[in-house]
C-alpha cells in the first residue's frame, strides 16, 4: 500500500493557519504578562506575607498544580456560566491560562527569592536602603538570574499548552488544524504541518529567551 502525501490542500488553507497562529501568539503573550504578574504577587505574598496570606496562596498554587489544565478550562468556560458568570472562548482561555501560569510561576519566583541569602538583604538594609529598594536593587536581579532557565521553560510549556483552548472553540493554531482536517481528511499532513509550526514557535521562543538572557545578564 502506498500513500501519496498531499500537503497542497493543507497549505491552501493557509489563511486559517495564519489566523490560528495569531491567536496562539496573542494568547501566549497576554498570558505571559498576566501570569507572571500573578506569579510575582503570589511569590511576594508567599515569601513576605503573613501566615494567612501564605496559606491562601499555597491553596491556590496546589489547587492549580494538581488539576488538569483542560479541566480548569472547562470549569471556567462551561462551568461558570451555570452560576451566571459568562465569558467568550478567548477571554475564558486567557483567564484560565493566566491563572494556571500564575500558580506555576509563583513557585518558580518564590524559589528565586528564597535563593538570595539573608546576608545580602542585611547588607542592603545596613546601607540605608528601604525594603523596596533592597528588593529592587539587591534581590530582584540575582533572583531572576537563578530561576531564569526554569521560567523560560515554563513559558515555552505555556505556549504549547495554549493548544488546549481549541477544545472550547477558541480559534487558535490547533483549532485551525482541526477545521482543515475535517475539510480535507488529510490527517497526517495537517497534523504534521501543525506539529512543525509549534516546534518552530517553541524554538523561536527559546532563541528569544536566550537573547534576553544575554541582554539582561551579560556583563558590561
Amino acid at each position, binding site marked *: 500500500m502506498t500513500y501519496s502525501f498531499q500537503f497542497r490542500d493543507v497549505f491552501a488553507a493557509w489563511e486559517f493557519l495564519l489566523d490560528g497562529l495569531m491567536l496562539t501568539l496573542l494568547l501566549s503573550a497576554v498570558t505571559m504578562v498576566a501570569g507572571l504578574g500573578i506569579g510575582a504577587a503570589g511569590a511576594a505574598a508567599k515569601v513576605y506575607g503573613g501566615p494567612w496570606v501564605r496559606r491562601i496562596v499555597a491553596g491556590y498554587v496546589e489547587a492549580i498544580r494538581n488539576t488538569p489544565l483542560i479541566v480548569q478550562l472547562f470549569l471556567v468556560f462551561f462551568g461558570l456560566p451555570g452560576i451566571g458568570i459568562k465569558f467568550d472562548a478567548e477571554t475564558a482561555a486567557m483567564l484560565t491560562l493566566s491563572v494556571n501560569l500564575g500558580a506555576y510561576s509563583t513557585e518558580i519566583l518564590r524559589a528565586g527569592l528564597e535563593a538570595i541569602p539573608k*546576608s*545580602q538583604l*542585611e*547588607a*542592603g*538594609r*545596613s*546601607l*540605608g*536602603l*528601604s525594603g523596596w*529598594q533592597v528588593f529592587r*536593587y*539587591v534581590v530582584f*536581579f*540575582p533572583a531572576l*538570574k537563578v530561576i531564569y532557565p526554569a521560567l523560560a521553560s515554563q513559558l515555552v510549556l505555556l505556549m504549547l499548552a495554549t493548544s488546549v483552548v481549541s477544545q472550547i472553540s477558541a480559534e487558535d493554531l490547533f483549532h485551525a488544524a482541526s477545521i482543515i482536517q475535517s475539510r480535507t481528511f488529510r490527517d497526517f499532513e495537517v497534523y504534521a504541518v501543525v506539529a512543525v509550526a509549534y516546534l518552530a514557535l517553541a524554538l523561536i521562543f527559546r532563541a528569544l529567551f536566550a537573547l534576553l538572557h544575554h541582554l539582561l545578564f551579560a*556583563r558590561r
Partner: protein
Amino acid sequence: MSLVDLSNVVKRFGALTVLDEASLNVEQGEIVAIIGRSGSGKSTLLRCINGLEAIQAGRIVVDGTVVNEPGTDLRALRQRVGIVFQSFNLFPHLSVERNITLAPRVVKHVPNAQARELARVALRKVGLEDKIDAWPDQLSGGQQQRVAIARSLAMSPHLMLFDEITSALDPELVGEVLKVLEEMAREGMTMMLVTHEMGFARRVAHRVVFMHHGKVWEQGPAAQTLAKPNTPELETFLSAVLH
C-alpha cells in the same frame, strides 16, 4: 554625650538570652575592640547598634538617635553607621563601582558622575582604585573585604562597625585588611570591632571590651587589660586564644 550608649540591653532568641543587661559607652573617635568566646554576644551587640536586631529590654542611643523605639528612622541612622560583615556581602551582580555607588545614588540621590568620584575616593582609601571596574568574583577575599569597607566609607559614616571581618580570610590576606583599619584609625574614625586578632586589638584599639555570658564582663585600656586581666574569665579566655 557618648556616640554610642547602650544601657542594660537584653536580647533573646527564643529561650536563649544572648545579651543579658549589657551596657557600654563609646566616645567619638574611640576605637573599641570587642572580644570573647563565640556565643558570648559580641556580634549580636554590634548588630543591635544599627538596628539589625531588635532588643527586648534596655536602651540604645547612637549618634543622638534612640535605636530601639518604634518610630525611629532606622534608614537615616544606617546612613551614618557603617557595618562590615565577616562574609563581605558584596552584591555579586554589581561591579565594584556599582557596589559602592548604589547607596549614595538611591539613598542620597548623588548624581552618577559624582557617585563615581565618591567610589574612586573610597577605593583609594582601601588601596584598590584600579579595581573600580572589576567584579566581586574577580577579587580575592581580602580585596572583596576592602571593597566592602569602601562601600561603607562612601556613605561618610560617623561610626563603623566591624563584625569579625578577617575571620573568613586566608591568613596571608588578613594583613591588608587590618592595614586599612589602621589607616582609618589614624584619620580618627570611631570604630567598634569584634575581632579575634588580639595583636591588632592591642596595637590599634584604645579600649578592649570582654564579653561573657551576654554581659560586658570586663573592659579597660587595650594593652593593660590584655596584659593584666582582672577577672579569671578573661584570663582563661586570653590563655586559650594566645596559646
